[in-house]
């Protein structure tokens, strides 16, 4: 019924990345990880950043998150320049980065409990988001007692409970087995539809990008930059076996590999 893509054109711009460049000062000389990246994201969009490993996806995402300082260009959220991490942008890491000394419940309540919110309110918020990711029964477990999929659910709930507007996800399902990954992909889409979040999702898997995104942003390496953008107009839920899906997938794969010449044998299509 309510397809979030329908009104996308009219939605306000939530994130604006302008001419972003990043040079790392590594011990063996400077490394240019990003050059002249431009990206505009509208509220409620689901964006996938797609590219071979080492092409600067994480760098771009980490600059947006405020963990890393850009050496050129700027990032603006709702028109305000980003300097440093903030609760408006929540990051979901591939390696979860849960606080191992806190239970599931306390991890999810971490953000709210560090703002001036009454403990009762914190408990209510935590309860709500714990239920949303289906972990109420595991409230008192510690992270080391959870499977990878459950940990990633906690990480997502932790960001949602903190009332983030933009969900930044850096290959969040990369370390999970195929079954858990596809379950979490479905859940993520469901959460996105119900919460009207804006999602920027980094992946090196063409299939994952085409399955999830409204728009796939293809990045290329050496130095990292944005090569092209592909609108994905397929209706949701998407059928991985359909002809349209596979046509689009082939198209994106071709764009991705056309830039990976003989000098870079990195296989970006290893996902299939």
């Amino acid at each position, binding site marked *: 019924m309510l397809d979030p893509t329908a009104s996308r054109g009219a939605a306000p711009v939530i994130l604006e990345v302008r001419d972003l460049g990043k040079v790392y000062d590594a011990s063996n000389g400077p490394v240019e990880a990003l050059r002249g990246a431009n990206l505009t994201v509208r509220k409620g969009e689901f964006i996938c950043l797609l590219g071979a490993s080492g092409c600067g996806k994480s760098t771009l995402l980490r600059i947006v998150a405020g963990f890393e300082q850009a050496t050129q260009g700027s990032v603006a959220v709702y028109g305000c320049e980003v300097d440093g*991490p903030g*609760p408006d942008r929540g*990051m979901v890491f591939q390696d979860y*980065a849960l*606080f191992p000394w806190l239970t599931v419940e306390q991890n999810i309540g971490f953000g709210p409990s560090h703002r001036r919110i009454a403990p009762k309110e914190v408990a209510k918020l935590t309860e709500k988001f714990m239920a949303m990711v289906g972990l109420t029964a595991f409230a008192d477990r510690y992270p080391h007692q959870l499977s990878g999929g459950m940990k990633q659910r906690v990480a997502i709930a*932790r960001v949602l409970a903190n009332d983030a507007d933009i969900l930044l996800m850096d290959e969040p399902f990369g370390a999970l087995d195929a*079954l858990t990954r596809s*379950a979490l992909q479905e859940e993520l889409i469901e959460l996105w539809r*119900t919460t009207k979040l804006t999602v920027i999702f980094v992946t090196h898997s063409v299939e994952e990008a085409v399955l999830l995104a409204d728009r796939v942003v293809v990045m290329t390496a050496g130095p990292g930059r944005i090569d092209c953008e592909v609108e994905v107009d397929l209706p949701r839920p998407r059928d991985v076996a359909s002809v349209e899906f596979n046509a689009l997938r082939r198209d994106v794969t071709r764009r991705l590999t056309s830039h990976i010449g003989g000098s870079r044998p990195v296989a970006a299509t290893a996902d299939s």
Partner: protein
Amino acid sequence: MSLQGTVSPQLDRAVATASVATAPTAPARVATRGRGRSLGPRLRAVALAVVVPLGLLLLWDVLVRWTGTRLVPLPSGVAVMMWDFAFGGIYDDAYSGSLPIHFWKSVQRVYGGFFCAALVGIPLGLMIGRIPLLRAMLDPTLSLLRPIPVTAWLPLSMIFFGLGPKSAVFLVFLGAFYPILLNTVFGVKSVDARLFEAAGMLGCRGPQLFRAVVLPAALPSIFNGLRLGASFAWILIVVGEMTGVPEGLGAVIMDGRTLSRTDLVITGMIIIGVTGFVSDRLLVLLSNYFLRWSPQHHA
């Protein structure tokens, strides 16, 4: 479209796959954790632990009888001395029934020095590990002072604090301070940088980070430091009490030496050994409680 209705069937499935994935490892973990450890294995552990001490006692007894030495008493002689030291009624000399007072004085000094060391060492370590300016200022000095054996401080400590218990407490403090401080600094430095990023994006910053992230993340390392510090504290109390202190287990050992009462010396040694052991077990219990979230810290 309600969230519950749409999300939960998928969640159930996902949880099911997740638990399938963990199924092979979970039972093994429970077994090694020993949640329902029965009496049998525990008795076995005690029996195994007791074999070597009993063997040493036997060897001691045999060697003393065989050599016929009068310098070292038999284990039974030490046992009698220990009884007299604790409850009196056998020799009725200056040491009869005086264990409680000596013991209590030493325990006070050990824990006095130890707690001071923890009270200074942990916060200082957290700050040195976290604040580069402080580290740049203090690290060189601390590294210069560290190689000096604590016992080398004894003469100076007696000048600062006079002949008496205060200088013993100071030695205990110094001895416990370095392991606590260094382990805390190490713990803070090895905190996963991701955790700071996670805390930052959740809106926790500045001084809040110390309590919310730095302290808990460094806790395993801090407990290592506390255990090391406590063992050094017990080592140094004897040194500290050997000069100019009338009461305390170290003083008893020193008296035993001057009076050539080896049974008293050995009695003092055994009591220190047992007390140090018990105090370490207490720390381990505490550590197991506070680190119950960490799979690798169930000593």
